[in-house]
């Protein structure tokens, strides 16, 4: 079955009525419990290396996309677990965000199945496009409450030929200031870890200049993500070292306990209500899921 046929079949499964939820590999929370469950089409439709684009079903495992792109010396900026659709629906970026940017900037075009059971296209296939409203960014992070992702065209990037993690006891903000475009700067209150990619001579030069020591792996990340303004990360100096790993310059703090619920202002709550009412008036897609409440 072609991807387009599979999308048609997927839309028919979602249908126009009744509560329905979606799952991929269940690595990012899984479906709403007790509701009819559907799965998005999977499979890579094409890779265009000179365009730096890939088209695949939303149900395609990130690992499959990564392996296929590796053959062309490319990759996507999506953490390598679960499915592409799951990663986009949740919208969390990986630890390379400091230099590689957020997941939301990866999507060029997507199709989703709407609450009416119709296939809707958003965005366009080219690497640059400002034609119409940006429904792609609306869908990324919307956790399947506005539509179920069917297929996507993603922007790829060159896979680094040389990449190295380093550690240091130096202040992470000093490293952030003196290194040129580090891929990641992590800090646990005592130790800093830095990921660099690029030309090997430049890596050596940067590492020597900043007294970095090569290490095999980055630290293990505690399971919960806290999202804070990067300027407030200095407050972590008052917390016991080793209880967190912070993404310096980004504002994600990985902790062992969940983040407190967000406290959105009434205007934001109202906008969310109106958007969901427009896209899913019956509240049938992932029923009961409140995107403002999940962390």
């Amino acid at each position: 079955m072609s991807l387009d046929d599979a999308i048609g079949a997927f839309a028919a499964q979602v249908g126009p009525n009744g509560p329905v939820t979606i799952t991929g590999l269940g690595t990012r929370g899984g479906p709403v419990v007790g509701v009819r469950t559907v799965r998005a089409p999977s499979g890579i439709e094409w890779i265009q290396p000179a365009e730096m684009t890939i088209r695949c079903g939303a149900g395609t495992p990130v690992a499959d996309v990564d392996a296929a792109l590796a053959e062309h010396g490319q990759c996507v900026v999506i953490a390598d677990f679960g499915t592409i659709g799951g990663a986009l629906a949740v919208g969390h970026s990986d630890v390379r965000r400091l230099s590689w940017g957020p997941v939301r900037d990866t999507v060029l075009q997507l199709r989703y199945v709407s609450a009416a059971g119709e296939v809707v296209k958003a965005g366009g296939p080219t690497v640059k496009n400002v034609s119409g409203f940006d429904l792609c960014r609306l869908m990324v992070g919307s956790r399947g409450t506005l539509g179920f992702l069917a297929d996507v065209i993603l922007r790829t990037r060159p896979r680094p030929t040389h990449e190295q993690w380093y550690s240091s006891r130096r202040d992470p903000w000093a490293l952030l200031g003196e290194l040129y475009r580090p891929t990641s700067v992590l800090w646990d209150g005592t130790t800093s870890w830095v990921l660099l990619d690029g030309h090997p001579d430049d890596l050596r030069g940067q590492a020597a200049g900043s007294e970095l020591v090569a290490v095999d792996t980055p630290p293990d990340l505690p399971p919960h993500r806290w999202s804070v303004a990067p300027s407030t990360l200095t407050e972590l100096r008052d917390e016991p070292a080793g209880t967190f790993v912070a993404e310096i310059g980004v504002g994600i703090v990985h902790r062992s306990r969940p983040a407190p619920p967000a406290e959105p202002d009434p205007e934001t709550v109202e906008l969310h209500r109106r958007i969901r009412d427009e896209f899913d008036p019956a509240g049938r897609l992932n029923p009961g899921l409140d995107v403002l409440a999940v962390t």
Partner: protein
Amino acid sequence: MTVDAVARSHVAAPHGTTPLVARLRSVLRPDQVRDGVSEVNLYRHDASNLVGHASVVCFAESTDDVRAIVLVANEFGVPFVARGSGTGLAGGAVPMGGAIVVSTAKMNRILSVDPVNRVAWVEPGVLNLDLSKQIAHLGVHFAPDPSSQQTCSIGGNVANNSGGPHCLADGVTSAHIHAVEAVLPDGSVTVLGGEEPEPAGYDLRGVFVGSEGMFGVATKVCVKLMANPPGVATMLLDFADVADGAQLVSDIIADGIVPAAVEMMDQLCLRAVEAFIHAGLPVEQAAALLIEVVGLPAAVAAQVERIGELAGRRNVGGVRVAADDAERALLWKGRKSAFGAIARIKPNYYLHDTVVPRHKLPEVLEQVYEIAARHELLVLNVFHAGDGNLHPLLVYDAREPGVVERVHAAGDEIVRVSVAAGGVLSGEHGIGLEKRDLMPLMFSEIDLAAQADLRRAFDPRCLSNPDKVLPSPAGCGDIHSIPEGAWV
């Protein structure tokens, strides 16, 4: 009642003040509200050829001012349109239906700069290049660099999701906006997005950027700043055949190199620019590529060498690498003064903006030349080749009978061949009025209905910059008016 009909009752009168103007003067300082016919007429258009109709112009100085204006607009049921510098090329800021023009030009303060975390808060009227100049001493810059960057505003960049030559590697405006404080179309004020990387809920920041003023008015913008690169190499490569230059662009990307910028100029453009700035451009060649690579020294040197090798396989003529900052500035001056230089050829021009897949550049460029020739028009091409973003420039003399119609017909064909080649309607100018009625080339009725749903969620009364982007009235009860100068 349609938006037009409502607005007609509030048209600025030469004698006496309308109730709308009187109300606006009661909520702002009187001198912030201008309704003189000649002054209001200055705001009927942007940098496109499209002309609309405003009833009054308000110069906001704060979020509170914008909110007050929007509340009055709601009270009177009159549309409003935010306006930065008016440099848009698609009619996005052209007031329709006697709208209130909300100028943010006086909201031009840089509010805060955090050079460590590379974040700044600015007001929407701050000019793009002014921002980068003011923070240059901190070793950072704002990456989007539209050709109009000396005069365009950050608020306008947000509305249009603007691009520029250096957006190839670093992304267009949306990738550089953390948050927007906005006055929503009902007058409520909120912050969309945030300095934090993953705010709860939908990416309303991402939705607002590029919404062409139809989701409210940005009153503060939190921008991402980028570290200035330690090394830069600027190369000029010339070709006897346009197709070779265009093919090289794909070769470079496929090889794993994403330069900071890859710009192409064709012969007519090279000649016009050379006559203007005398930079020693290769005027005998069919086309030239201006390529810039940035970064650490070993990477820059390796990329320059590799690009030279790849160019050799595409029959490159000359390869000129700028020896110093002065030569680099001269080469960029050549690229950025193209629009000024063409005034030497003909008094008028129409600048187009479409994107095609990079590998289709040779084929679509050929079609562009053919279309121009068939309509007996001169066309210059100067564009962002790295991301396939074409900017055919049709030059003409509007005094010549029938020429404007030919320019419009050729423009329509250029857009159609771009979309047919797998491309899109606009890469950075936006849809506005100019391409509103071409949206069905890219989107089905179902696709467009979803965009209209989003618009309605933000602006149920459709008062914020109505008549733009969406080809059908989006359930707002307004009937599209056709502006003067429209070609679609």
